[in-house]
């Protein structure tokens, strides 16, 4: 049947409207509990997804035979200023500086630090439940990400942005055997997800009044809650040594509708504009060599080398920002070494498996906040504990 030209044009425009619905509007951070493994491997995950993260990162991997039940994940990532704020003296100094007794001449060292303080923190848990069966998976998580930036030489002001997410996801996947002799399989999966995002933003607060921002018991600011439903689709070709995957995240556009609340948890009548998690297509390839540098498998096992390219639908200024490369190998079935290149920045991680079910991981990874490679890096140190059965 021949489709009239006008109808074809309409169909193409409709597809484009679906695929690029909000490229010019505000971008939201994607739905994700975060993964220190992916961070350490240069943010590669599409063709080398860990079972416990399959529902979140590539639903096609839900089709594999293995079963995994993750009960808890505690993950804390912060840059150096973030560590100072969360665990160091800076938080205490801010509280002290904000108290009425010390508003005289500010301590010199503290004020010098505050001319350009840029704390970033990112946590997962304590809520983290994920079950991956053969062909399906469900997940529930909480995570938060925020920044506490101070700038100015005379009267520094603070910008606080904090998101707390609660997300739930369910997915189905099917394996299609393409060739039994070679073990070639096609995995196809999809998820549906629901996200609640609680956001608190305080802009240009004078440093003298910033103590309320770092005092969890004095929280009184307005906040907003956004809700969204989204979906991801994934397809993966898998052989014993190679896998190639494509994932279309938030394929129909995940729109957050916001309601504003006062500090006393009363709804405010403010009209807020919807925001969007931009649809993103990513492709990945992974190679699982039978051995690592010819060494026996009891020395190095589970070696993987992966490459991801993500962000085809985003208006990136450079291809290199989309490129991610990762490597991992497990030493003596105990310690896993991970290396990577995340949009050009080297990443590294070390993970230990204790008692067969407790994963302890440390990662150092840099993210790009600017528009070009190398423009505005933020280096995060991540500690993660995951208990899985």
């Amino acid at each position, binding site marked *: 049947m021949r489709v009239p030209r006008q109808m074809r044009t309409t169909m193409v425009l409709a597809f484009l409207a679906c695929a690029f619905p909000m490229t010019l509007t505000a971008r939201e951070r994607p739905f994700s509990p975060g993964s220190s493994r992916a961070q350490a491997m240069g943010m590669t995950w599409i063709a080398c997804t860990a079972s416990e993260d399959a529902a979140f990162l590539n639903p096609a991997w839900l089709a594999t035979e293995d079963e995994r039940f993750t009960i808890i994940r505690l993950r804390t990532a912060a840059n150096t200023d973030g560590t100072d704020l969360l665990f160091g003296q800076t938080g205490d100094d801010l509280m002290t500086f904000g108290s009425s007794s010390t*508003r005289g001449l500010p301590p010199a060292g503290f004020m*010098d630090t505050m001319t*350009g303080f840029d704390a970033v923190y990112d946590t997962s848990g304590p809520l983290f439940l994920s079950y991956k069966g053969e062909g399906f998976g469900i997940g529930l998580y909480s995570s938060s990400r925020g920044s506490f930036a101070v700038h100015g030489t005379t009267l520094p002001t603070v910008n606080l942005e904090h998101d707390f997410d609660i997300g739930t996801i369910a997915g189905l996947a099917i394996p299609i055997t393409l060739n039994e002799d070679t073990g070639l399989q096609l995995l196809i999966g999809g998820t549906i997800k629901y996200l609640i995002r609680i956001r608190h933003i305080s802009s240009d607060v004078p440093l003298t009044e910033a103590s309320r921002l770092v005092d969890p018991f004095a929280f009184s600011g307005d906040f907003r809650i956004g809700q969204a439903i989204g979906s991801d689709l994934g397809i993966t070709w898998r052989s014993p040594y190679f896998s190639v995957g494509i994932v279309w995240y938030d394929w129909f556009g995940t729109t957050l509708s916001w309601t504003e609340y006062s500090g006393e948890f009363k709804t405010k009548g403010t009209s807020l504009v919807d925001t969007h998690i931009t649809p993103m297509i990513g492709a990945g390839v992974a190679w699982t060599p039978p051995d690592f540098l010819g060494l026996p498998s009891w020395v190095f096992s589970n070696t993987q080398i992966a490459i991801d390219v993500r962000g085809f639908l985003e208006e990136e200024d450079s291809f*290199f920002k989309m490129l991610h490369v990762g490597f991992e190998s497990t030493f003596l079935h105990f310690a896993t070494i991970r290396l990577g*290149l995340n949009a050009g920045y080297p990443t590294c991680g070390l993970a230990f498996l204790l008692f067969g079910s407790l994963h302890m991981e440390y990662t150092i990874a840099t993210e790009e906040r600017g528009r070009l490679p190398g423009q505005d890096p933020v280096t995060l140190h991540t500690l993660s504990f995951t208990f899985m059965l």
Partner: protein
Amino acid sequence: MLRSSVFLVLLFVLASCNAFSWAASVDDSEDYGLLMAEARAQMAAGCPDKAVEYFTRALSLRTNDILALDGRVEARLLLLTSGRSVYTAFPSLFITNGSSDTSLFPHTPTRLADIFPTALSAVRDVDLLDTLLSPTNAIRTARLTADAAVATGLAALLTLADSNSNGIPCESADTFLPTAAFTVSQSGPAPNPGIVATAQRYALTARVWLDRLESATLPAMRPGTPLSAFRFNLVRFVGHLSGVTP
């Protein structure tokens, strides 16, 4: 052990180095957003001089853009203080019991010759911003107001300190110098009356900026705070300037 330590040190140093930074440059860019992003990144990286350059390029694309002007003011203040707080870079401005036998600026004339034009440029930027912004504009933050006050106050003091108008304050040929007590010490012929009038005008404008901060009832302007001490000092300075007879 040594190899592991070297590896870790290298890793920490290299973590923020980008393998692909050669592949993209903003040097030839005419993209306002990209230039602003680069300016902010340079400021965060501790390079306010480059930040000023990129904000200026952004302003060449969008004349009188308030975000670029505000960013440039902040970057210029960082240049004035070498990236530190003004309370560390110019502690004598915020002390009310300084001696009249001590010079207000312990810095070398060479350093002051760098500071002076930067302060004057910052004053030009804040004056322009003041005309562009409505009284309730969100850009008019406490930080910007305090930056304006300190830059303008510094301009007042340095204008008098450069009494021979050669652009190098506090050198031996300058006969009028502000002291740590905000008096004016005289060691030769009086400066050009225009210089005294300009210094006076800057000092009064700086006081207006500080009054605006106070009207916002910020704790930073309560009695005993550094900025309230600065205003007290400026009032004293204006009083002494009126006694200077060319």
